[in-house]
């Protein structure tokens, strides 16, 4: 194991290279630019291609094009670029093309604040395109080391599920410096629970079966298999059709290939839930680090508190919230996004509260104050503009 001290950007780059990424197309944007820069240095060393696209829409389309040629492709961006992926993301979802997308969330909306962390794309990452009729896989690292692991994992899932996988990070994860352990041997890589699925080639010309099967090799053009690949509603031969029955089969496959294999996707940390704590804090990404500290501190004080950190965000893990409890959802935004899903999923009789801010993390002390208030069953003190209404 090579022990280094590095950024999330470097971790993501090394992970991508280790996962076999051989195409990166991107467009510079803070705080994801260093990923592009690192890839521009690393990819040629391993025989891969780095391209600077004319915009993010092109970046993901270039990745999609490379992927249908058999390359393993990745792009990285932040909010203003992420929104431009909508078109290409939809194409990859519907055409069932593996590709990895990293979003280092900053403060929005729109240009917002460039160099500070936000969590404004929780829902956008679920619905990064129009039209519905699909499920999305989204993974959220909370540390440099985890950014490495989840990026490798994203490539792995993208190949097996034939779909884009999003790594939803934030500025602190990607810019932050931490200890990073890089596996040097295959054994070390495997010991980290990581695996690489090489690109396999769909035999064609038949399209994917109308089943929830994963591990069906993706369509790869250039091998004269008569493969057809498009965003149109496909028949069993991949031909475009306006027939609603085929559309139904297609949508069913897009949805259920993911929902029926959630055991491969679902991941979460759960802290102190065995004794059914009264208050449960919930967070993903960097804020979950503070949440974990606060929960540990509260426990040391003997308080009935636990914590949940979803690592895979989508499909949403409703099952994590089946305990009746007082939930406090901590997010780097003012409008409350994750909290809405927790509210929907929480067991009957639960209370769901929101702690929001963006640009900077909450402090452990601030969270402890809210925990104490909630345990006393008193209303949370809120300054006028930190709303609990969503």
């Amino acid at each position, binding site marked *: 194991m090579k022990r280094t001290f590095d950024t999330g950007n470097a971790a993501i780059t090394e992970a991508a290279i280790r996962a076999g990424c051989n*195409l990166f*197309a991107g467009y510079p944007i803070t705080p994801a630019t260093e990923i592009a820069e690192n890839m521009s240095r690393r*990819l*040629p*060393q391993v*025989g*891969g*291609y780095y*391209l600077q*696209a*004319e*915009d993010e*829409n*092109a970046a993901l*389309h*270039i*990745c*999609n*094009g*490379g*992927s*249908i*040629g*058999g*390359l393993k*492709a990745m792009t990285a961006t932040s909010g203003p670029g992420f929104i431009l992926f909508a*078109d*290409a993301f*939809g*194409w990859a979802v519907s*055409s069932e093309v593996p590709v990895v997308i990293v979003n280092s969330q900053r403060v929005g909306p729109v240009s917002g604040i460039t160099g500070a962390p936000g969590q404004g794309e929780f829902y956008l990452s679920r619905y990064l395109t129009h039209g519905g009729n699909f499920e999305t896989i989204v993974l959220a690292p909370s540390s440099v080391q985890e950014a490495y692991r989840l990026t490798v994992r994203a490539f792995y899932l993208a190949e097996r599920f034939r779909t884009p996988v999003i790594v939803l990070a934030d500025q602190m994860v990607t810019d932050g410096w931490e200890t990073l352990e890089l596996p040097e041997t295959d054994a070390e890589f495997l010991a980290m629970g990581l695996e690489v699925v090489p690109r396999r080639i769909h035999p*064609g010309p038949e399209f994917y079966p109308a089943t929830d099967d994963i591990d069906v090799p993706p369509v790869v*053009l*250039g*091998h*004269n*298999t*008569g*493969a*057809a*690949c*498009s*965003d*149109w509603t496909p028949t069993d*031969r*991949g*031909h*475009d059709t306006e027939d609603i029955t085929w559309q139904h089969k297609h949508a069913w496959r897009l949805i259920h290939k993911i929902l029926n294999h959630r055991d491969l996707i679902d991941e979460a940390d759960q802290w102190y839930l065995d004794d059914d704590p009264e208050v449960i804090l919930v967070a993903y990404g960097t804020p979950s680090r503070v949440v974990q500290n606060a929960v540990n501190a509260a426990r040391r004080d003997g308080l009935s508190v636990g914590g949940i950190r979803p690592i895979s965000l989508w499909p949403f893990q409703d099952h994590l919230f089946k305990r009746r409890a007082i939930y406090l959802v901590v997010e780097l935004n003012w409008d409350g996004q994750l909290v809405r899903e927790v509210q929907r999923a929480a067991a009957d009789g639960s209370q769901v509260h929101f702690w929001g801010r963006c640009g900077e993390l909450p402090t452990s002390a601030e969270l402890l104050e809210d925990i104490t208030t909630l345990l006393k069953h008193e209303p949370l003190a809120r300054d006028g503009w930190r709303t609990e209404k969503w």
Partner: protein
Amino acid sequence: MSDLLEKYVRPEKNPGTACKGCGLRLAHRKVLEAIDELGLAQGDVVWGTGIGCSGRQTFVTWKGDTFAGTHGRVYAMATGLRLALPPEKRLILTVGDGDAFTIGFLHLLNAARRNVDMTVVVFDNLGYQSTGGQYGVTTPLGSKTDSSPYGAWEPNWTQGGFDVLRILKESGATFLARHTVLQGHEPVESLKKAIQNRGFSVVQLIYPCVTHYGVQALGTRDLAKIYDWFRERTADDLSADANTHFTTGITHDASGSRVEFAAGLRQFVASVQKGVGNGETD
């Protein structure tokens, strides 16, 4: 001709669904003729399409490998795909004038800048036709369409001194030609050169949309009258007045004069790997 279709077109897609009398079938056929005359087999070509009548009618017609992109983005996709394909594979895209020259123009220009090896055949029906007939950047000024009931007024890129192919030339394209489908074999000859160019080629191939342009702009459903109008407007060279004619011919042939993008990138990567470091390509 049916031999050609049998040879290259998937039976499920023959005949296509273009309107009766539409010039699109002629346009499609010109591309197949060029492929045939070059002696290319099904496995030698990867075929991509855009959105619109042109895209939809030609998508998955090709018996070999084929793909379709969203509106205007197929040039960016083809840029990525080109990096993965063996250099000898021909990459042909059949797209609409709107797809290439408006919504996808940024990507088209950048594919030209990079000189990515692909042949973009723009099936130009003088506007947005599959959405019912609205004017675009190749619609002749004054044309009545459903979105220009008083006549098309916005400046376009084919008249008034502009030529969209000249913009592409300045952007780095290495082969450019314009024809109409009424020109017999000439477009086929240009298409052959375009396909043979190991670089970025665009062939603008103008054809009659009988259902919308014919009815809205030319005021007739009579196929003979519509085709006559196109025939009369077709000039056999580039010197005619572009305000009143479709000037035709090869507007730029610099085939082989620039490093092709994928080849250049491969060479660059190899030089980095060899430790040369500066990665200069000659």
